[in-house]
């Protein structure tokens, strides 16, 4: 794996990684972008983060490879990866590593990661703008409203990332 800083860090993606790490108790939450056959870390957060922004990753025997190649969320061991899906395919993924004490991430963590990955997809799709993605704004809004009603603290953290995105971060 080669470290290579290719661009300035994105406030939006950093906020997403930060929210993901806090809400899921992940030791590391990373947003990665798929660029051709390259996988590049574009944001990372977490108390036990090992990856760095700009780092190129290789495919391997983990959930990340499957999420990027298969377009499906997958949890394996202490890793959970949710693909960031755009209208034309997989744009990247939100990758969680170093799960909570029990070892693996639960359904609720995956649900949270799914929401955050959708926001990341919107950002990756348009290179910063919040426009078309695989999920429509109304769908995402409905899901956020449901979360706001059921889990205020999670909603606050996710909304914070979304506000950063809408502010043009």
């Amino acid at each position, binding site marked *: 794996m080669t470290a290579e800083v290719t661009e300035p860090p994105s406030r939006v993606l950093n906020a997403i990684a930060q929210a993901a790490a806090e809400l899921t108790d992940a030791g590391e939450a990373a947003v990665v972008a798929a660029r051709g056959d390259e996988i590049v870390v574009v944001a990372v957060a977490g108390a036990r983060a090992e990856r760095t922004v700009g780092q190129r990753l290789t495919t391997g025997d983990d959930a990340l490879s499957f999420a990027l190649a298969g*377009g499906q969320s997958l949890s394996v061991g202490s890793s959970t990866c949710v693909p960031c899906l755009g209208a034309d395919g997989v744009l990247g993924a939100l990758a969680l590593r170093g799960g909570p004490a029990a070892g693996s991430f639960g359904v609720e963590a995956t649900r949270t990661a*799914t929401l955050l990955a959708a926001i990341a997809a919107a950002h990756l799709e348009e290179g910063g703008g919040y426009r078309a993605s695989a999920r429509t704004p109304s769908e995402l809004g409905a899901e956020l409203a449901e979360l706001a009603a059921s889990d205020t603290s999670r909603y606050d953290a996710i909304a914070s990332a979304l506000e950063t995105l809408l502010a043009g971060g």
Partner: protein
Amino acid sequence: MTDSTLRPAWSRGESIFDVPALDLDSLPQVTAEWAWGGATGDGVRVAVLDSGIDADHAALEGCVDEEAGLALQLSDTGEVIEQPGPHPDLVGHGTACAGIIHSLAPQATITSVRVLGAALSGRSKVFLRGLAWAVEQGYDVINLSLTTCRRDWALAFYELCDKAYFRGCFVVTAANNLPVVSFPSLFSSVASVACNVARDPFEFHFNPDPPTEFLAPGIDLTVLWRGGQTVQGTGNSLAAPHISGIAALIRGKHPGLRPFEIKSVLRATAANVHGLNLPRT
């Protein structure tokens, strides 16, 4: 195709994990005992389109026909290269799917069609070609624990899945966890599967809210992985092979059933339709 019926298992709260018993005419003569009681999958050929299969994994007990396998990838010029014969699992996920199918249908023969893992680009083209090959070979059950959301490939997948349907190949796909349009899991010619929270591998549900038609175990499962390992895994991609395995049992006992009849048998024997009183292999 963006309404709420496309919502994934884990964005629906817990509701999908608590599917109520359905007030349906359940074809009472079609019981699980009738459907697959005493069956082992003997004589049934299952194709797994995935990252390859670790055929030497001890838990697979030699069920993988390595010589019949096919590995596909894109060439530098964008053409699909087909490499027949044995090939490794590049990720581990295909081994997980094969292990689930084998645990349910131990006498079924499993073939790996590797379409994932060699590269990230060109996935849809390789995926489509791999599926076409499996249909051409006439596999009884084809497990697809992957999807594409590329709309420009939708028609090609649609036509191919219809071809599989008419040919008698039962195609099982994992529904996408995300509420996005993805193919071929939205097509009626395939059986689309998401997770339930069951621990019993035979406990599957019929979902009256399609396009996802069946729910099967897929959360916190101990699954096989490449290198002879086992890991804990969660995902709709692990639910689909449960339905593939049960379909292999049904096909083994009733080889003349067409794909639409297998779906009907699955619906009739689902835990929320017929109750959980299932024969074991």
